[in-house]
């Protein structure tokens, strides 16, 4: 899933990328590191604040696997990652293992650039059905393309509600009772919205509706957040046969109506769309956020009493959208087995607990939440605990197998049109659905070979 670089991460991202690019150029081609260790190049887009944790992870892996030299290389996320992957695949310099987003699977599989992960899972050094069943099924949905598991998650995330407890108190709201329903979200937003000087423009809003330019780089991120509300209304993106998009149905309309209502009532057209900055400067009292930013908050939100709450429940109950980063092994790798050793190691419960404690991400396996040491850790980290508890209602949208980027974009444009453009939510959703359905009609459904057996929808075992 699209992952937002934190403010701190952004600043170092560019020089780091340049530096690593030079380094990579310097060591390119060499497959054996000094001392005959197997070199495994690992591309990732972790934000700056996660890098120390990553260094620890790599050190631990190399300690436990002295024959493997794991080389993490930073690639900026979003468009840059997929552009680099394409360049690398086309020029035969692909990494051994890389982060990917579910959106890229369509192209990566079409180009036969990655191994189906099931080849390793079913292999001699594979994973047991019990191991797979322990991983959140929603994550495996995103890790698969047309029913085949092509990647494995490295960590889990979901979307929660970050709120300012000080501002809640100031507005006469109970900071221990964050909004639990859509109606409360609207009511709280009204209470928290403030026009101090009476000029008709709000100095403070309650809930920052995360609208951004639909075709811009943040479009996919906006759609991902919208999906959480779509699920709270009981909706989905696409039907199981991949023939029709579903976001223009009633749940989609309800979700977009809610966003539009909040957007209009807080007059967000006249408000900054730098959401994180407005929260940090206490001009927005609530915003959507994921756990990856938690390590930054002691510094960024110094002096603010903040909390994390589960997302308010919609007409269909509580739900949030799951995210994560997925590891894929590239066909051009000279050591796919060594790459698999890393992927399998990262997915083990012990390492998941370790990685979550260091990085602030959530574990991909349910059993980790039962480990006593991890429970003790969560007790000391209420923010992360809120996210961890929310995993129980975290769901994956059904992934779109054809023209997924365009179909996602059509929805992003519709969201912008209904909010910033002031258009009717039903009308813009119908328009987006018509354009997307035309793409699905034109999709070449024979392009990819028959899908291999896949994990059952309830997240159970793959059957060979």
């Amino acid at each position, binding site marked *: 899933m699209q992952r937002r670089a934190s403010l701190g991460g952004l600043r170092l991202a560019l020089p780091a990328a340049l530096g690593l690019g030079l380094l990579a150029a310097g060591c390119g081609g060499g497959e054996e590191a000094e001392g005959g260790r197997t070199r495994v190049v690992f591309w990732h887009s972790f934000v700056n604040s996660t890098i120390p944790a990553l260094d620890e992870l790599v050190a631990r892996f190399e300690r436990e696997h002295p024959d493997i030299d794991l080389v993490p290389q930073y690639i900026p996320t979003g468009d840059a990652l997929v552009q680099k992957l394409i360049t690398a695949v086309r020029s035969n310099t692909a990494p051994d293992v890389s982060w990917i987003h579910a959106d890229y699977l369509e192209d990566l599989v079409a180009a036969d650039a990655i191994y189906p992960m099931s080849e390793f899972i079913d292999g001699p050094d594979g994973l047991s059905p019990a191991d797979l069943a322990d991983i959140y099924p929603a994550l495996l949905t995103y890790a698969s393309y047309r029913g085949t598991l092509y990647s494995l998650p490295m960590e889990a995330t979901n979307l929660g509600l970050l709120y300012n407890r000080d501002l809640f108190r100031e507005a006469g709201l109970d900071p221990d009772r964050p909004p639990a329903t859509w109606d409360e979200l609207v009511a709280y937003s009204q209470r928290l919205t403030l026009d101090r000087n009476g000029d008709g423009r709000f100095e403070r809003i309650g809930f920052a509706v995360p609208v951004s*330019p639909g075709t*811009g*780089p943040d479009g996919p991120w906006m759609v991902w957040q919208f999906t959480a509300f779509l699920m709270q209304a009981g909706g989905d993106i696409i039907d199981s046969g991949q023939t029709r998009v579903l976001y223009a149905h009633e749940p989609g309309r309800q979700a977009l109506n809610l966003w539009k209502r909040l957007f209009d009532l807080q007059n967000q057209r*006249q408000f900054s*769309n*730098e959401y994180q900055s407005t929260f940090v400067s206490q001009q927005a009292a609530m915003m959507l956020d994921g756990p990856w930013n938690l390590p930054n908050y002691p510094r960024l939100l110094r002096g603010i009493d903040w909390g994390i709450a589960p997302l308010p429940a919609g007409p269909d109950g509580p739900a949030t959208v799951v995210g994560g980063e997925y590891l894929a092994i590239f066909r051009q790798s000279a050591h796919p087995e060594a790459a698999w050793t890393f992927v399998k190691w990262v997915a083990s419960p012990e390492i998941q607990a370790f990685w979550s404690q260091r990085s602030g991400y959530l574990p991909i396996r349910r059993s980790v939440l039962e480990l006593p040491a991890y429970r003790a850790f969560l007790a000391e980290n209420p923010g992360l605990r809120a996210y961890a508890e929310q995993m129980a209602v975290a769901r994956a949208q059904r992934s779109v197998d054809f023209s997924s980027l365009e179909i996602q974009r059509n929805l992003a444009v519709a969201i912008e049109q209904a909010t910033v453009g002031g258009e009717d939510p039903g009308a813009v959703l119908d328009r987006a659905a018509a354009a997307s359905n035309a793409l699905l009609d034109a999709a070449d459904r024979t392009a990819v070979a028959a899908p291999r057996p896949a994990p059952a929808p309830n997240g159970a075992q793959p059957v060979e």
Partner: protein
Amino acid sequence: MMAEVAAAEAQGLRRVASAAARPRRAPWRRDGRTAFLLLAPTLAVFGVFVLFPIVFSFYLSFQQWNLFSGAHTFVGGANYRAVFADPEFWQVFRNTAVYTLATVPLNMALALGVAVLLARRMRGKRLLRAAFFTPVVVSSVAAGVIWRWVFDPNLGLFNVSLGALGLPAVDWTSNGTSAMAALIIVGVWKTFGVNMVLFSAGLSGIPRQYYEAAAMDGARAWGQFRHITLPLLAPTTLFVLVLSMIGSFQVFDIVFVLTRGGPLGATKVLVYYLYEHAFKYFDMGYASAVAYLLFALLFAITLVQIRAFRNRGAGAV
């Protein structure tokens, strides 16, 4: 990148033109051989990184090619037809035209005005010239990020200043017209320094005697400007106009950082559209078709401009 390509193309055209004027001489003869040898590295780089992509992109514009898989098929003019049939292309085209028509005159007027003022004897002239030129060398991305903060509706310097003056705030990010205005402001700020330097060079080439004679005849400053500066500056003006038009039509980086094409696509420009199709949807054939349409358009505009100036120049003589 596009600007460099265009500049290189323009240079190439001029080189061809001047070569045609002189008698032809094979490059391998006597001193020609040395020259060719010395040029070889540059020519190789130019050939691999400029010439080849230009030609290859033309070939691609008739292909259906997904960058990832590498498989491509000939589709004839289908890419061009698809571009013309896409309503978004026309919106993007209109946006680019609006941006160009606003930016180029503003840019040239400002550049000429500043150049004329700085042509006088004055203190701190060099410092001022350097200051006006600084935006040109500032990284577009850094500048874009700074301006994004300046234009932020409730945190930004611009609206805070308007408020302090008792003026109503402007919704720079959610109103299409304001967002385009913001883009134009930044576009002019970022590029007029180059034109100022070009005009300054042009001005220093005008002999002083003309002004002295005109002053003797009683011409005032405005008369001198209209009847001496402007006509004698015409070649520079043509050059500046052509370069500015090309540059404006190819605007990308500040859009990418400042408005990200929003709101509602109101600031999405041609090259941004091209970028999206090339590097987000990986439809290289389609993107190449857009690139060649842009090239054809710029070529036509440049020809018209050169012809118009030539005719006017002929009439004046």
